[in-house]
């Protein structure tokens, strides 16, 4: 992975304590899984930033390699990869998401 791309991804993740790579925007998600994570985050009142991977192919492919995770969305909290859609929803169900997002 190119250093430049890697540092671009890292600086995005560091830009906000809760950061989501998604398809589309929180206002207009372009994929059901991205929409699901956005609504889970909103329902726990999480203050998050996001990046629309559909706007940048290099980031879209890059984060898959970066996180060793083949799909999007990807949620990061305090710089740590938390998971994709299924894990985020499972954490939401168990009440852990609320704790994790209290930053």
């Amino acid at each position, binding site marked *: 992975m190119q250093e430049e791309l890697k540092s671009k991804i890292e600086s995005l993740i560091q830009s906000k304590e809760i950061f989501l790579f998604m398809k589309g925007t929180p206002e207009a998600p372009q*994929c*059901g*899984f991205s929409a699901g994570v956005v609504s889970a985050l909103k329902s726990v009142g999480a203050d998050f930033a996001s990046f629309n991977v559909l706007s940048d192919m290099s980031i879209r492919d890059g984060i898959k390699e970066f996180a*060793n*995770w*083949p*799909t999007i969305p990807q949620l990061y909290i305090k710089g740590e*990869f*938390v*998971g*994709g*859609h*299924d*894990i985020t929803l*499972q954490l939401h169900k168990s009440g852990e998401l609320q704790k994790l997002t209290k930053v």
Partner: protein
Amino acid sequence: MTIEEIQKRIEMGLPGSQVEIQDPYRDGVHIKAVVTYNGFQGKNLLEQHRMVYATLQEELKAEIHALAIETRSN
């Protein structure tokens, strides 16, 4: 790639696992794999999902559009 092929691929990659593929919209595209596997014990959710993804590495690059995963251990 058919649902049966995805099921077989996961079962081969995680020997002894039980895999149920759900196709809630009956479109063969937005599918969910419910995987029960003893090897998940002691692993966190991220690791469990990565183990399932690893069995479908090539397919996820091209053929599989949306795969939800639920992992369980006995």
